[in-house]
């Protein structure tokens, strides 16, 4: 089944077209990596799909719900970890997680239970009572992602989840993300090409607001006539294909 399908999704700021006629599709349970150089329009695409900004034209269906017509339904099944870390500064790790569970409609008891599960999963037991503002950037980042997972979304958008993480934390996070594979649909953006190649089921490459190509890592390499994924990315994003 298709989890996400966009139909000529377009975003213009004044005269500048930031995302142009995007037609992408993501299968349910798939991990989809959206790649592209800085300013390619990845975050803008994620913001449109998560109902944060309205497309200028076009539409997208998430599990059959339109981001324009049924945004309330869409919001109930998705969650987002924004590119910038986004946590409530004066709340503790535990309170942040319980807060998100609460606004997604879990009752107190299940919010607490969910929180403990997530804390265990992300190794955050030791810092569960620390205020978010006192955590290091990397731990804030992990909390930010944990907050996106706690609501048990059907589709999760991770905008550069590994940004600012050290090597160990990054590997750790990828392991967590890998565990989610098959259970929920994941759309993520990253600049770490090796990881995208190794882990995603499907990859889309954007440049200047346009989806240049999409497929498995092998298909993209074949398309660019190279067996090096980074080289394939450079060729496709640089319009040499």
């Amino acid at each position: 089944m298709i989890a996400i399908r966009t139909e000529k999704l377009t975003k213009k700021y004044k005269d500048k077209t930031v995302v142009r006629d995007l037609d992408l599709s993501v299968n349910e349970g798939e991990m989809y990596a959206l790649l592209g150089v800085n300013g390619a329009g990845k975050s803008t695409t994620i913001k449109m799909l998560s109902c944060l900004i309205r497309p200028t034209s076009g539409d997208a269906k998430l599990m059959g719900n339109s981001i324009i017509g049924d945004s309330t339904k869409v919001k109930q099944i998705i969650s987002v970890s924004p590119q910038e870390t986004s946590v409530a500064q004066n709340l503790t790790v535990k309170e942040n997680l319980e807060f998100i569970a609460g606004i997604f409609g879990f009752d107190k008891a299940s919010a607490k239970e969910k929180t403990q599960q997530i804390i265990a999963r992300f190794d955050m037991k030791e810092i569960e009572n620390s205020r978010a503002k006192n955590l290091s950037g990397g731990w804030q980042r992990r909390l930010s992602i944990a907050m996106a997972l706690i609501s048990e979304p059907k589709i999760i958008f991770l905008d550069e989840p590994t940004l600012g993480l050290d090597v160990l934390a990054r590997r750790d996070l990828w392991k967590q993300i890998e565990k989610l594979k098959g259970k929920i649909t994941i759309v993520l953006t990253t600049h770490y090409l090796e990881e995208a190649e190794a882990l995603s089921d499907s990859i889309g490459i954007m440049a200047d607001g346009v989806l240049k190509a999409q497929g498995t890592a092998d298909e993209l390499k074949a398309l660019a006539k190279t067996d090096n994924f980074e080289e394939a990315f450079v060729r496709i994003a640089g319009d040499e294909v």
Partner: protein
Amino acid sequence: MRTLVFASRNLKEITRDIFTLIFGILFPLVLLVLLSAINSSIPKEATMKLFEIENLVPGIAVFGLSFISLFTATIVSKDRCTSFILRLFTSPLKPSQYIAGYTLPLVPVALLQTIVCYIASFIFGLEWSANILLALVVTIPVSVLFIALGLLCGTIFNDKAVGGVCGALLTNLSAWLSGTWFDLELVGGAFEKAADLLPFVHAVNAGRYALSGEYSLIMSELLWVIGYAFVILVIAVILFNYKMKQDK
């Protein structure tokens, strides 16, 4: 339920800020001490009644509430200017739930602040009477007014500008035009007229009448406050909704 979850987060966020304590509670108390000290050095024959405790407390209480605007504005604009709002906006919270969630937690904070102010006044010679309870009730619409002002400022200004606009401009405006520090009639002219058209002096007067037991005079003063509170709240809600729909 969701509203309460959001409100409780906001309450924590505000009360855990050390500035809340300093400005919200300590600063009004310091003023109370200072002005009472000034009052005790004014000779009785001067018949200067302004700084007598019964006149002073309602003024200080209103002045203290102007910091509630600052707290409201700070949290609203901080949320707006960081990506935290992105997270909230992709959650199933509705606009009305945002507004309620920002407004509700500040009402008890405002009441607490006023109660502390009145309790402290006992030290400076305020005598207990049931009228004090009435004065506390009068505080409720006044706090809604200041919360609404805070919502409005937080919606319009970014988190840096908010400190200046609410922290400096609004607190001064509400102080100078409230008749707490000097008798507005003595200044007269356009200044008095302007003060009369704004809600601050009416908020203070309502408190004074409540305290002195001149019940029949309270409502006409309070209507100014309620009217302003209502209008500003409506404008704040409309603007907030508008900004929510606008592209980030």
